[in-house]
């Protein structure tokens, strides 16, 4: 044959080339290109999402403060609904019959859009009601109940502390790309938001196979590839549920905040922001959202960690401590007081007490004049080139005491208050355009000094610890839940521990000197508790002065440090000191002593809301 063998070889080479092309293309689509695998998954698999139950939130003593309960949504598939007894249904569900009629009419109007889908008719029907409905369900074809896990609040610990859980919105999804999908729930504020990662658990899924007509056929690989939902981690908080509840009661009908910290650990025992969101609204916050938003006292605003309050006289402790550390103030130094700072315009003014006095007495009697002199010595110290430099140094001290910056607690949305700075004054008055007299109001915690109740409470804890604090936090370490190391480390201030005893002594005397001795906080005295405290009365441009009080007890080995801040409450001793001392008493003694019962009643029944202007 004509070159037969050569041609056979050429043909066979051609065959090999074609086979290679086919194999190459197969290699590409089967191994290189992932597109086809993704498409196959998308069109043949249906992922049924299994929602996990959220972690439970416990208090420090193992009491549940946030749990889960089952509620039922009533779903209706309008297409499957025949004529039914609307009265019977309304009776079973405990809703007005008109509501059912109007909803059914609405579904009828939207029947095109709804198609064969089910819609939620009623949300969060409690189980007792659902049982009644379930017994009668056969009367209502097209209606069914769907169980859902929702939050339950056995203790009224306050909505701002706990936070709430709600369906994620578009903005939230954008902030957390890939983590959530529309329809998921997430903690929005408080502990729910702070420990969302632990609480939320992991969604699971069941994979179903569907055919080309979109009908579910069977479990994919008999469920071998399914993922079960992992329940969220339980959280143990540092909160003492009973104390928190008592705190809520004390702060009822007052605007302000109450914070208690265990000084040795930095654990927050109580954190009240008043007025707050009642826990009865939390589970279904969407329903009450308008009501909450319209409240002029802004219950969503968490005053404990966000409010910028002038700390008032409790800030004298800071200035005193700075003076001692700088050496410009010695405990035995005497300063005069003539119903106020005797230089210039006699401001800040002061109340009547003996003069001159030493540091202890100044703290005990909360003398404005004394601390104005003390701060002046700090700021006009020749050590520094000018007052600006001295103020910078002062800022460093104040920072180390936890002011003018965020403390770094694990509470979301914490703010840091504010301090007067050289930069700020230079801007306002021009460089060299201001002197001590210009800014003397900061001596007594007014003017440009702003602090959150948490910072003020932290000051109490710092003094209680004689020189250090542990960053306040609300989450305890427990199995599966870790907390950062910073919540275990002592944060030393720039003030040496040796300077604290005198200050502590002053605070002790303020409370324990007995009525008539000039101590500002004798009302906070509780027999046997050795409470050390400092009152404050801060000016409020929006009406009556704010009542402020910080304290800790007992004097040695303190177990609790408290800050109470009552807007428009007047003198520190009028509202804040009783509130704080009652809280201390409750915590340390477990009950309020008989002779203090009238005080407790006055506080519990006290209503300051009329004095407070809405925002």
């Amino acid at each position, binding site marked *: 044959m*004509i070159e037969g063998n050569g041609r056979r070889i050429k043909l066979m080479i051609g065959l090999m080339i074609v086979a290679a092309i086919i194999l190459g293309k197969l290699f590409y*689509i*089967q191994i290189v290109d992932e597109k086809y*695998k993704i498409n196959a998954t998308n069109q043949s698999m249906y992922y049924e999402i299994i929602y996990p139950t959220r972690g439970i939130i416990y208090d420090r003593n193992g009491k549940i403060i946030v749990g889960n309960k089952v509620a039922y949504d009533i779903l209706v598939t309008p297409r499957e609904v025949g004529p039914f007894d609307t009265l019977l249904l309304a009776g079973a569900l405990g809703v007005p019959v008109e509501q059912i009629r109007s909803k059914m009419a609405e579904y009828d109007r939207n029947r095109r859009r709804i198609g064969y889908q089910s819609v939620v008719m009623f949300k969060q029907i409690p189980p007792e009601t659902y049982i009644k409905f379930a017994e009668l369900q056969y009367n209502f074809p097209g209606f069914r109940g769907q169980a859902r896990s929702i939050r339950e609040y056995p203790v009224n610990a306050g909505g701002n502390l706990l936070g709430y859980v709600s369906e994620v919105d578009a903005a939230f999804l954008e902030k957390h790309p890939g983590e959530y999908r529309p329809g998921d729930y997430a903690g929005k504020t408080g502990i729910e938001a702070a420990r969302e990662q632990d609480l939320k658990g992991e969604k699971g899924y069941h994979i179903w*196979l569907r055919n*080309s007509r979109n009908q579910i056929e069977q479990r994919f690989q008999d469920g071998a590839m399914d993922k079960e939902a992992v329940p969220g981690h339980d959280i143990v908080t540092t909160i003492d549920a009973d104390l928190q509840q008592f705190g809520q009661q004390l702060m009822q009908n007052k605007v302000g905040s109450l914070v208690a910290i265990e000084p040795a650990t930095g654990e927050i025992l109580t954190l009240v922001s008043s007025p707050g969101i009642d826990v009865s609204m939390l589970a279904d916050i969407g329903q009450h959202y308008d009501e909450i938003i319209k409240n002029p006292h802004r219950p969503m605003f968490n005053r404990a960690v966000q409010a910028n309050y002038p700390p008032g006289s409790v800030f004298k402790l800071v200035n005193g401590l700075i003076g001692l550390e700088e050496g410009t103030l010695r405990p035995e130094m005497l300063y005069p007081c003539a119903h106020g700072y005797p230089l210039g315009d006699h401001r800040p003014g002061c109340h009547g007490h003996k003069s001159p006095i030493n540091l202890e007495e100044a703290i005990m009697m909360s003398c404005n004049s004394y601390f104005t002199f003390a701060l002046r010595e700090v700021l006009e110290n020749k050590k520094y080139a000018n007052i600006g430099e001295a103020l910078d140094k002062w800022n460093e001290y104040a920072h180390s005491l936890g002011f003018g910056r965020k403390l770094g607690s694990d509470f979301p949305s914490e703010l840091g208050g504010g301090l007067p700075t050289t930069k700020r004054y230079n801007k306002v008055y021009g460089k060299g355009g201001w002197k001590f007299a210009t800014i003397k109001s900061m001596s007594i915690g007014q003017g440009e000094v702003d602090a959150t109740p948490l910072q003020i409470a932290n000051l109490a804890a710092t003094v209680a610890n004689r020189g250090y604090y542990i960053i306040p936090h609300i989450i305890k370490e427990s199995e599966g839940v870790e907390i950062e190391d910073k919540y275990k480390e002592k944060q030393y201030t720039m003030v040496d521990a040796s300077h604290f005893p005198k200050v502590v002594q002053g605070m002790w005397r303020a409370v324990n000197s007995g009525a008539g001795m000039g101590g500002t906080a004798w009302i906070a005295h509780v027999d046997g508790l050795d409470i050390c405290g400092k009152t404050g009365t801060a000016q409020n441009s929006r009406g009556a002065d704010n009542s402020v009080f910080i304290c800790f007890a007992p004097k040695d080995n303190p177990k609790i440090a408290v800050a109470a801040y009552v807007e428009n409450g007047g003198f520190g001793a009028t509202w804040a000191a009783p509130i704080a001392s009652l809280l201390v008493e409750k915590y340390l003694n477990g009950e309020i002593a008989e002779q203090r019962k009238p005080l407790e009643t006055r506080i519990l029944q006290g209503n300051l809301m009329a004095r407070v202007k809405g925002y």
Partner: protein
Amino acid sequence: MTGENFSDRGMKHSVDWRLVVTYLLLILIGWVNIYASIHSEGPASIFDFSFRCGKQFVWILTAVALAALILFVINPGVWQSAAVPIYLFVLVLLVAVIFLGIEVKGSRSWFEFGPVRFQPAEISKISTSLLLASVMSQPGYKITKTKYFLLTALVIGLPMLIILGESETGSALVYAGFIFVMYREGLSGWWIFSILVAILLFILTLTLSPYVSVLVLLGIVALGVIVQGKRLDKWLPINLGVLLLLAFLPRLMGLAAGKWSFLEGVQPLYILLGICLCAATYFIYKGFVSRNRYLMLSALGVVAGIALVLSTDVIFNSVLQDHQRKRIEVLLGIKEDPAGVGYNVAQSMIAIGSGGLTGKGFLNGTQTTFGFVPEQSTDFIFCTVGEEWGFLGCALVILLYVFLIYRIVADAEKCRESFTRIYGYCVAACIFMHLFINIGMTIGLMPVIGIPLPLLSYGGSSLWAFTVLIFIFISLYRQEKKYY
């Protein structure tokens, strides 16, 4: 069977058992995959006769019986002598089916006898192969002689045209594979080359532009001439230069049109065509004078190529049927139509592509099991292989086919009888064309053309036809082994 002819030893050595085993393997693979692809509908057993896998089992049994009949009972000598009557009989069937057949998916190509359907086009492959072998093995046959060439073309062309008339484009296309047989028997390789170039030009014209197409044609021909004339060093640079210049002509003209407005109406294509035609005329003349047949034919080739390019639009829009045009458009990516014509291919590629290296495992395919891929036990059976057995499974199937074809060709080459050799090549060509078109279609290399995958696809008609086709060859080859 008479014992004296078949000693064990004779059978052992005369029958090419490797072919038989490959054949059986492919049939089994097909059967298992047919079972897998209808699994979700719920046949309890692979033998359940109410399902396709059960029916296929019956087809397989009968096919094996048929194979035994051909191998051991029918005298192999019959095939050559009966080639003409068989061919004519099948031609009659092919025509008759147009009038008497039932319509299946737009083509009248099936006879129906009660529960059994069969397609004459399937047998026609056998009859054509037999007659082709018979004609081409005549003493004195030379394919280069016009008389014989035309006769050969007629034997192939007649059934091909009738089948085209039945709208069975796929089956008709298989006949194009006989060109490889003709090539083996002495047809110039330029034919195959020209066909490939024509297909390339067709695709280029559709996807890019006639200009590019003509440019590529020029390049190919010029290169051919230079290589043939062994004047590589002298002409290649000049040629490249001219081609580059022409390639940038449209851009240059676009720039120039800004200056000289008269250029605006002139299309670059016309200039290119003008240049080509002048050059072609010159080279035809030059080739004629210098008796350089090659040069002359090359120039004629350019003219023919240009004619093809210019008529592409007409062929595409008027000659091709609607669905064929759409399928080609989808293949070439000119149009996307994932819900319509493109659905089959898209789904088929998803099924195969999702198989990965080792596949999802037997009966675990999601695409093929739940009805995403249409025609999945017949024309798209390869999807099931691809999805459930992955790249390795696909490679195994393809290697089995390649081995089958290779072995048939190798056996054919050993034959002294031209008839057997040519018939063997015909068988190989048929299998190759089916293989390439079918698998090419499932992975998006070819347009959707409905022809079965030999031995794997569900269907008695196709299985029987390939069984007969292959076993006639095995029987003929056995004859060779016995007597020579």
